[in-house]
């Protein structure tokens, strides 16, 4: 695997995004809108405490936000036939996967850095500053799984006739385990103040999930991206 090629592809993606900003802006707006909509959907009574819904709200928002970005990240490549150029370069397919995945991971992290403070302002009544460490770990592990799986599936779905219609249908059922574990962990942190000790099982699960799908993507990406 070429480190320089990896850096070059990642740099290209980031520069293009910084010039147009279309993905980041729409992802961020989507996340904000989702949080506002969640407020209206769940505040059934005046003064309802939504703390126990926090994990669910956050991860549903992030998964759908990531979906938005994943679709775009390959649509651009396909539209101007950039992908053909990329495939003609003497680059290992796995390097392309890792670079693309890192790009998607960075976008998702940027969105989260912006969205989590707003989210806590809206929904969390107590201070959770002490739990920031475990929460960060949950976010990183879950994001890695979402992006590894999402990049692989986005590559497949962009070559299909349905394109962005197909991605959610194949991606969402596969991401259910991450959603369950991350939601349980996040709710535990915010609602019960769980520390690393009681989160151990969920963190381990997320790490195993990441490892499995990184290996699966490593083995199958060559076939997914095609000739």
């Amino acid at each position, binding site marked *: 695997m070429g480190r320089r090629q990896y850096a070059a592809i990642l740099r290209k993606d980031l520069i293009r995004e910084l010039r147009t900003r279309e993905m980041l802006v729409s992802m961020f707006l989507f996340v904000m809108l989702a949080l506002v909509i969640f407020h209206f959907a769940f505040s059934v009574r005046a003064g309802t405490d939504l703390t126990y819904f926090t994990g669910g709200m956050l991860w549903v928002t992030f998964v759908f936000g990531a979906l938005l970005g994943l679709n775009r990240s390959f649509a651009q490549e396909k539209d101007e036939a950039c992908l053909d150029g990329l495939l003609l370069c003497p680059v290992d397919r796995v390097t392309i996967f890792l670079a693309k995945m890192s790009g998607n991971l960075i976008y998702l992290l940027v969105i989260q850095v912006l969205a989590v403070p707003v989210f806590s302002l809206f929904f969390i009544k107590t201070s959770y500053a002490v739990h920031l460490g475990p929460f960060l770990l949950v976010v990183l592990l879950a994001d890695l799984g979402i992006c590894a799986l999402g990049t692989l599936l986005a590559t497949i779905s962009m070559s299909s006739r349905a394109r962005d219609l197909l991605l959610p249908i194949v991606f969402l059922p596969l991401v259910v*385990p991450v959603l*369950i574990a991350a939601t349980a962990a996040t709710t535990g942190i915010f609602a019960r103040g769980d520390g690393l000790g009681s989160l151990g099982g969920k963190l381990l699960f997320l790490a195993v999930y990441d490892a499995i799908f990184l290996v*699966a993507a490593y083995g199958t990406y060559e076939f997914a991206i095609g000739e």
Partner: protein
Amino acid sequence: MALKKLGSPAALFVGAAAFLVTGLLLAFWYAPTDASTMGFSQKIFYFHAPIAECALLAFAVAFVAAVQYLRTQKSVYDRLGYVSVRLGLLFSLLVMATGMIWGKAAWGVWWAWEPRLTTFLVVCLLYAAYFVLRQTVEDETRRATFAAVFAIIAFVDVPLTFFATRFMPAGLHPVVFTTGGARMEGSMLFTFCLTMIGMTLLLAALLRLELAEQALKEELDELKIRAEAGA
């Protein structure tokens, strides 16, 4: 292929029928009624559990076929993968149906977010997506390749989903599907083994039949194209 060594579809069907009918008779007149809270409703277990095992077995076959396809690029493995997923999905739907009937009899509700039932719900959605994926890719080699990649990651995802459901807060209903291994009485275990073998034979018979049908269908398509070209 190894499937051919199993015998003709007709022989497999006869074997499956013999085992399943004997199992059904034994379930009612030989195996005792469950002593725990399950009572009579436990009888459905003799069909519910073998169907579940066969669904997972079919997906496992699809997984192996997918790996073989990616290694060899032979279309026969794509065909095998396709029919196995189709049968696996059919069996999964049957698992849900029998599970819901059992749930209604044992807990009084049609649906409970019990880990195994939840897993099969996700599995159904997951493998339904397999067909959407196949539908939307036109190029044959591409379709086969993508389907194989998806069948591999889908199969890997099944145990992960099952483990993850354990993180959900337990609902009203306890996990009572523990009639496994050592906790089963001898006569129950014997009956269960019979229906298990019968169901597996049924799966093998259906697989062979579907494979043959699919092969004929493809041959017919080819002949049609040739006839059109000739006319």
